């Protein structure tokens, strides 16, 4: 099926009918495309049959009518395989540790979500963001080593050079590590990896395997 093509600046519809998705922008109560691509309209998810009405324990905003509107977005799929994606706050990223310092671990962000990045972006993991508990006892060199592959979450756009990342969750942390002898290790606990050949343990902030 031929999809509708959108070019930048093309009118897509009034903002009272659709919710703006990726690749669109709103100008004077109308939705316009902002990238070159094909138009996709996603219908809002149908609410699952509501259970017994709960008593309101917190003040919620008025139920917004925009939740019921279909989302319109312009995607670049099919135009080029190269997709430029930036890490955003909240994204789970995969990165390689490039440098260890007592106050921070410097990483290179390789993958955002399920998109492999064209360019490498630099990130920083500070000791207070390594884990959620006993933050004051964290030592960076007992959590990461250069060359480790780490799953982390973006918590801030950071400073001029690097994004700030955190591994303060069970499923975040080192997912691939090599020992000092150069062997690929396997995790044995939440803070240790073991070398299968030498049998030695090394300290890491281990991500919980799925």
């Amino acid at each position, binding site marked *: 099926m*031929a*999809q509708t*093509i959108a*070019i*930048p*600046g*093309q*009118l897509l519809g009034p903002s009272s009918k659709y919710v703006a998705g990726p*690749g669109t*922008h709103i*100008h004077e109560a109308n939705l*316009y495309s*902002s*990238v*070159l*691509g*094909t138009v996709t309209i996603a219908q809002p998810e149908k609410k699952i049959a509501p259970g017994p009405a709960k008593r309101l324990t917190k003040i919620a905003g008025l139920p917004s009518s925009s939740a019921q509107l279909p989302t319109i977005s312009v995607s*670049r*799929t*099919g*135009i*080029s395989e*190269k*997709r*430029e994606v*930036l890490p955003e706050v909240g994204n789970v990223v995969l990165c390689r540790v490039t440098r260890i310092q007592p106050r921070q671990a410097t990483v290179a962000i390789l993958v955002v979500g399920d998109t492999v990045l*064209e*360019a*490498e*972006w*630099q990130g920083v993991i500070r000791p207070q963001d390594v884990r959620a508990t006993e933050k004051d006892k964290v030592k960076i060199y007992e959590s990461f080593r250069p060359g480790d592959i780490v799953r982390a979450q973006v918590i801030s*756009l950071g*400073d*001029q*050079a690097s*994004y700030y990342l955190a591994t303060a969750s069970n499923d975040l942390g080192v997912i691939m590590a090599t020992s000092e002898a150069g062997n690929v290790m396997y995790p044995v606990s939440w803070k240790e990896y073991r070398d299968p050949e030498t049998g030695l343990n090394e300290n890491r902030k281990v991500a919980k395997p799925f």
Partner: protein
Amino acid sequence: MADRRRINGPVGATTPPIFDKPAGPAAAKTRDAIRKIFLKTGITPSASGSAYLELENPNPQRPGNTSLKLSCTVHGPRSLPRSAPFSPHIILTTHVKYAPFATRQRRGYLRDSSERDLGVHLETALRGAIIADRWPKSGVDIISQKDDEGWDMMNVLSGCITVASAAIADAGIDCVDTVAGGVAALVCKDDKTAPTIVMDPVVAEHDSILAACCVAYLPTRDEITNMWFKGRLPGADMMVYDKLMEKSLVACRCANRVIVQELNETVKKGQGIS
């Protein structure tokens, strides 16, 4: 020692190729139309986005009068250099460069003041079109190169704006609209006849150009992002300034139609492959 950093032209004299039969005469350009534009996106595989533009040559018989050729590459969005301060929006850098062989007089490899001037104009024209805050902490480089000789600066600038707009759309950078460039000029034959306004002036065809105007225009928004006006207007007609502007806007609309068509084809081609 020989300069090994770049590929220099031959040292001695060379004989240019001579084509004995000129092509058939082109249709005479009417005053109310712009020259035909050839536009193609995705010509440089290594860049994030790229486009190539060629302007029809109205009188191909004349020697040394070749068509205007422009190529544009967009690199990015990519991370800023370490020394750059934090930026909540995209940093736009534009370069306009004449190829060394693009003009009669051979150009240097370094950008001179006129090229830098064109780069500033191009940056202003594009800045109004790009949604800069969609890409924090990143930079984009836009490099336009003029590959052939013989046209004045305003025509080059309007071509640069049009080709850069197509390349940015090809790179997938968020824009509010496809910006297009257009030129109009006030020309006169001699002192006796009244001056007339032409769209997309061919410099060689006119005896004297009194004033010229180059604008960058967003057609759906009906906004102008950049304007460059040069020359002297006769004092008798108060409206001539407005008329000149309007004519260049018409030229912009014409150029924009070419962009729209080429971008549509780009998407169709992409869908055909996938």
